[in-house]
């Protein structure tokens, strides 16, 4: 049976209070939800009609087994949604709680299921916290630019100890291409020009103001700005 949003709220509140104090009274409920005792009485009446709660003497309200079950499912939803917002997106606790209050009633089962899946993925995931989450946090904290810089550095370090950015090679030296770390459009362009894994690329000369730099690849000269050359990770070739 479908409950209205406010009835779901009552159900949840009754559950929370009775979990905490052992028993829920109409007065407690009205305080908790900031409503009049008469509206609580009305709500409890509808809940009892649905056989989810029983209104006992002295203003005590008790949930039936079915009521506990439904309250739990709403409460779970609240907890999981709120967690998702605060833990992974970094939303502050209060806002996450408020949003969860709204969403727990309206969220589509499929979306909810995906969030649950996401949590169970995290539990089974081999890393304690997947890289993308760490990176996302860095991205949020430090801003896009410095995050990108950090990743470039990390990439060149972790892949290969000899790996350097193409922009760091000196005139006259050359390197073997390892990887291009650049936005899609630039990456595709560089790849089409033949800057692919294993290709040899030599530094020919630097323009008068120190930028751009003239490189030789295959049988032709290509000039790149330092910005682009930084995106190309190479292994320096030691000449004998």
């Amino acid at each position: 049976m479908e409950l209205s949003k406010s009835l779901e709220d009552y159900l949840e509140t009754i559950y929370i209070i009775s979990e905490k104090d052992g028993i829920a009274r109409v007065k407690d409920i009205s305080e908790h939800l900031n409503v009049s005792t008469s509206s609580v009485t009305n709500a409890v009446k509808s809940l009892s009609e649905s056989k989810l709660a029983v209104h006992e003497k002295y203003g005590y309200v008790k949930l039936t087994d079915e009521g506990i079950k439904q309250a739990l499912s709403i409460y779970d939803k609240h907890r999981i949604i709120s967690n998702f917002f605060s833990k992974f997106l970094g939303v502050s606790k209060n806002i996450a709680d408020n949003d969860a209050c709204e969403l727990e009633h309206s969220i589509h089962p499929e979306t909810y299921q995906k969030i649950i899946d996401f949590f169970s993925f995290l539990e089974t995931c081999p890393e304690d916290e997947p890289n993308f989450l760490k990176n996302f946090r860095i991205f949020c904290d430090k801003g896009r630019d410095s995050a990108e810089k950090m990743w470039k550095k990390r990439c060149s370090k972790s892949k290969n100890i000899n790996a350097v950015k193409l922009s760091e090679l000196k005139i006259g030296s050359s390197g073997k291409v390892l990887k291009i770390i650049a936005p899609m459009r630039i990456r595709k362009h560089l790849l089409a020009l033949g800057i692919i894994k294993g290709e040899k690329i030599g530094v020919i000369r630097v323009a008068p103001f120190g930028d751009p730099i003239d490189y030789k690849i295959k049988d032709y000269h290509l000039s790149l700005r330092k910005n682009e050359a930084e995106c190309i990770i190479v292994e320096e070739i030691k000449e004998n």
Partner: protein
Amino acid sequence: MSQFKVALAGNPNSGKSTVFNALTGSKQIVGNWAGVTVEKKTGSFSVEGSEFNVIDLPGIYSLSSYSIDEQIARDFLLSENPDIVVAVVDASNLERNLYFVSQLLEMGNRVVIALNMIDVALERNIRINSMMLSKLLKLPVVKMVANQEHGVKKLKKVIAESAHADKNILRIDYGNEVEEVLKKLSIEFDMNSLEDRFYIIRALEGDEFFLDMFGNKNKELLLSETNSLSQILDDDLDEFLIEKRYGYIHGLVKKVLHRTDDIHSKIDFSDKIDRFVTNRFLGIPLFFFVMWAVFQIVFTVGAPVSDIVGSIFDGIAGILRNFLAGHTPELFISFLTDGIIGGLGAILVFVPNIFILFMAISILEDSGYMARAAFVMDKFMSMFGLHGKSFIPMILGFGCSIPGIMAARTLESRKDRILTILVLPLMSCSARFPIYTLFVGIFFKNYRGSIVFSLYLIGIVLAIIMARLFKSMFFKDENTPLIMELPPYHLPNWKLITRYSWYRTSMFIKKAGTVILGGVLVIWLLASLPAGIEYGSENSFIGMLGNIIAPIFKPAGFGFWQASVSLLFGIMAKEVVVGTLGTLYGSFPGGVNAAIANVFNPISAYSFMLMSLIYVPCIAAISAIKQEIGWKWALFNVIYTLFLGWGIAVIFYQVAMILIK
């Protein structure tokens, strides 16, 4: 007579336009690709009783969808189904050029390879076994030195022969993992031909255009296949596919290319030149020297020819006047001599200079220097928010803003395009040149070159400053890459250059014959009416109009109505400024020159030239800007140049007057 459609495709700098020129000769039409302002050249030739219509596709490195040029070429090849695709291949840079050819072949085109620049390859000790290449790729290969017209006949013959040949589709083996997925997908989509295979590969590569061809549901499937393949291969799939393609080409090149002198490879010719041209210390001075030299040549070589043209027009006007005097109304004589001949003459005297200017620009472009100029200037340009490649459109702007505005298409990012186009009209175009010549000839006889050069320089400096300002106003944090090939130097192809320069000059003459002449006639009419007044006097309509505007220019030193009117009409086309002055002062004793010498002084003359340089681009340029980046930017351009021009002219005049006292 049977007709065939031939598409000419290839990398930039592969000599494609030279091949096009050699194939089609003078039968060329220059237009635009539908909807965009990328230049589209078509031409034709006939051989063995068939006619071949040649379409020159934009020079590109690959057939993906990442630039407008690539999209044009892709759309043409997919939708127009050319009978033959001639792939122009630079023999001295075989591997990268053949990569592009491999894409044409995978797509399923009937390809003929024009193996161009054999001579350059030989100089670099590269020998190519074209027979072997032809056998391995199963298509005809014609060796060429297109700029000497070697191999052109053969190419025509081969094109004619292969018009009926079977299509030959290249099938590159992408390895087990990819091939399995390709097989699975071809069954899933029921797409079994090799052309279909190309579409699926392209979609897997993540090319939006091809992905969209499959519809939403299949698109999802393709994307998930791309993801899982990337995981299995532990590499991005698009990168993997490109590597495979290059791998195939590399193997092919190994079989057909022989380097005769691998160990002691000499420093080649281009490299020797680049040691100077792009040198850390020499590069920039050399660049400015080249620019300065261009203007000196335009002047010193052009001037005597201009004088001859000028005296011919004067002569004609004189003869006509004598001939008609007495038995024709004076108004009509004045219409013919002052209006038509005077106006036309005032513009056409600049044809020699303009022709030489276009020659110089195309020599710089064709020889390979232009790319070096962009290389040398890039850092400087990027400090001001522009791009090294902005330089080429801006230099074209010296000829005419409109091809410059159009050439801004070579810039990949919209931000760079907008910035370049916004400041491009500040580059002094050839139409403003007559104004300078007129004034410089009167006031700065001994410093002609230097004074005009200073105006060009001011234009450049202003362009740079405005670009910086606009960048910080409109595009704060956007940066775009520079990825530019430095092609080997080669001697310019004179035929191509003269044809191009003549084409551009003839456009100028056409403009002179229509817009400018029309403008001059309107001015003549306004200067003659209402009936009964003295021609070009203050009482004429034009005089009244001028008197309204004139006070605005008083602080700039030229607050007389003739100057104001000439600037107003100059918006039609900048040449009209001179035409107007010619018409208005034509009846002054001693002619225009005497009149100008009388009302201007050197300072107000320079101030007037500054105003002419900066204020509002001509109508044709405004409409080109609107077409490229929208009417809002076009309007913005009009407004800012108007205020800037007035401001600079006023500041210059006031400061100079104080200094002189």
